[in-house]
């Protein structure tokens, strides 16, 4: 009896371990197994994906090239004041000569010239010319005279202000460039000259076009989703193939078919001329401009709107609308007040998904957008592979990433990441 009372206060398992402890251990064991199962993928994604993204973030502020190519100058220039009205002293110029001598020999100094050229044009030429001439010179007595004799820009305060500003390990110049701003010689920040402003415009265009495309997909996708959700399952299963086939078709295939359709000598223009709507010389220019991008991307992203909408609409019992009708509502009122509000979640889910996809698109605008229909991703690609301004590419990419992350958080609030289904 006494035993039972004592045991009532502390419940144990068969092996005498307190129940609470055993339960905790079992739960922990389960969590451990679960974590163990997930960890291989987690590590994999970490290494192959997340770290590269992080690397890109670092590149957007990385300015270690200054320290690498100008080791002596970077040290000496710290003593020079940005507000100074005189050029740096002889010691700095000696350092300049030394660094150029080394850099010209190794043929690496011109990279710094290219980097500085992003801030001030002419630097690239200055560095290359200086490197060529310094190669032939021996250590001069007056480095100041020698360098300025090579090129008078070395006697220019602005040149040295630039070197001073960009002498640190990190820089914010790429982010400034990404929003069309620049640092002036007095250290203040101003917007770039009108003809050099391009990125703000581009971001704006990307958002605007993506918004248009999202709106179009909602407009076109809603009727289809409604039809599929309310038809008999057998018929809707067959019709849904018409949605899934484009979904599963390669992106390039769909884009090339739009090129064939939208060209001046393409199928649509031929049909319009054939039935007499337009004359042969009045063919519509539907490609290599914004129209091409909008039409092609709407077509490609439409299934991404239809499928989530469809799965939401399928959960709305048809009896609700019938009940509303039976209480005297007109079809339109029943739709507006009963059906539509219940589909908002689907519109939200599909809309955000389409929007996120649209702002990151690269292939389709590259092929059908011409120059007016290109989006921000095309410029990121341009800077990575052609202009090789990797800092700027990284800065633009980071801004785009933050935009998408904000939208993703919104999506999570509306739908919930764990609830994502793919039809």
């Amino acid at each position, binding site marked *: 009896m006494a035993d039972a009372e004592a045991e009532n206060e502390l419940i144990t398992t068969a092996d005498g371990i307190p129940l609470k402890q055993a339960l905790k251990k079992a739960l922990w064991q389960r969590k451990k197994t679960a974590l163990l199962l997930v960890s291989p993928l987690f590590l994999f994604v970490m290494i192959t994906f997340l770290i590269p993204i992080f690397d890109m973030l670092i590149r957007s502020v990385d300015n270690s090239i200054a320290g690498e190519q100008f080791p002596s100058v970077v040290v000496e220039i710290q003593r020079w004041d940005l507000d100074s009205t005189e050029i740096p002293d002889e010691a700095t110029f000696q350092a300049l000569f030394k660094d150029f001598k080394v850099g010209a020999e190794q*043929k690496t100094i*011109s990279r710094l010239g290219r980097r500085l050229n992003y801030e001030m044009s002419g630097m690239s*030429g200055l560095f290359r010319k200086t490197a060529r001439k310094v190669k032939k010179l021996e250590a001069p007595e007056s480095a100041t005279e020698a360098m300025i004799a090579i090129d008078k820009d070395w006697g220019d305060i602005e040149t040295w202000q630039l070197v001073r500003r960009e002498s640190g390990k990190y820089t914010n110049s790429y982010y400034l460039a990404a929003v069309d701003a620049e640092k002036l010689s007095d250290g203040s920040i101003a917007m770039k000259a009108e*003809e*050099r402003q*391009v990125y703000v415009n581009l971001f704006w265009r990307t958002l605007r076009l993506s918004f248009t495309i999202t709106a179009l997909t909602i407009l076109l996708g809603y009727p289809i989703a409604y039809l599929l959700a309310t038809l008999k399952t057998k018929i809707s299963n067959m019709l849904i193939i018409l949605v899934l086939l484009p979904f599963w078709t390669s992106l390039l295939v769909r884009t090339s078919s739009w090129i064939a359709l939208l060209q*001046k000598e393409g199928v649509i223009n031929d049909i319009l001329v054939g039935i007499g709507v337009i004359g042969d010389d009045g063919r519509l220019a539907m490609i290599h401009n914004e129209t091409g991008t909008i039409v092609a991307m709407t077509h490609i992203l439409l299934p991404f709107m239809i499928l989530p909408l469809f799965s939401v609409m399928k959960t709305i019992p048809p009896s609700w609308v019938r009940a509303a009708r039976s209480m005297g509502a007109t079809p339109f009122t029943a739709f507006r007040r009963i059906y539509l509000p219940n589909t908002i979640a689907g519109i939200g889910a599909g809309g955000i998904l389409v929007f996120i996809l649209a702002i990151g698109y690269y292939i389709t605008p590259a092929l059908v957008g011409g120059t007016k229909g290109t989006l921000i991703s095309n410029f990121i690609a341009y800077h990575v*592979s052609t*202009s*090789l301004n990797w800092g700027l590419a990284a800065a633009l990419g980071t801004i785009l990433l933050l935009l998408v992350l904000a939208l993703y958080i919104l999506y999570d609030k509306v739908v919930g990441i764990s609830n994502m289904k793919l039809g």
Partner: protein
Amino acid sequence: MNKLFKQTLLATVAAGVVATAQAETTMVIVSWGGAYTKSQQRAYHQPYMDANPGITIVNDDSASEGASKLRAQVEAGNVTWDLLDAEAPNAITLCDEGLVEEINFDKDLAPAPDGTSATEDFGKSLISDCFIPQIAYSTTLGYRSDIYDVAPTKMADVFDLKKFPGKRSLEKRPDPNLEWALIADGVDPKDVYKVLDTKEGVDRAFAKLDTIKDQVIWWTKGSQPMQLLADGEVAFGSAYNGRLFEAIEVNKQPIKMLWDGQALQLDGWVVPKGAPNKAEVMKYLRFATDTQRLADQAKYISYGPLRASSAPMVGKHADLGIEMASHMPTAPENMKGAIFYDFEWWADNKDDLAERFESWLAK
């Protein structure tokens, strides 16, 4: 199931090993594609492969992104290209940045048949220590012959939308469009680079281009303007003279070309630093840039060989049998009104102007 899986795995691994074990040398040569690569294939690659059976030459058509891709490869320490076909300004920049090998011209390249050293034979076209000259080509204008009653006669006509309406196609880069804009605006060809060296000069060039901007479709690859002209999508536009030759003489398309305003370019080879098959590439270069080879490529495409000794050997087109001498950009009758590039100036300024150009395009 287990046994089958094991066998398949073994077979796959074995196949992989065998594939890599075959000791043939493959050289990757990067060029511009289309008719140009075809001419190199017929004049250089194929004869070399015939004479050296263990060698395979693979063509990669990414020369238009060549400079940037090469920079990326060298920076990564993983160079997969053996030889790159590059234009003069790019070659200068790549050389200055140490991304391509320096060449000892008299040692590495063959002398002319009469004994003249390579340095003398190539003469002024040796614009850099790393650049091995091949051919002179030009970017020039072509137009549909069946559209205009009065045909255009000079380069400035491409800016005249009233007399010569219709869409234009221009190369999606600042040169030679900026030079053309200034000359059409009245600048003397001799002073073009002096004017371009100033901010007002650049603004003036872009302002002139603005007058036709809406009507322009921009091309990046050599075959694009030919497609646009053939389809009738554009009426008037710039293209490489060799591609125009192919369209007019070989494909017999209703296109004509202008020599006035032709912008002469030098095109040649550069050897990437760290090329996988450097020794073989140097052997290949000795063969592919000798007097006979450079004269041979003129049999397939209308580009002028840069060796003085090759010029008199330029004969007839291999398939068509027409005399090629008059189709060379460097032929005296075609040189009136030609524009000579200032390669050093472009090497210094192309990054700047390329960015300005991209911004201008995106507006």
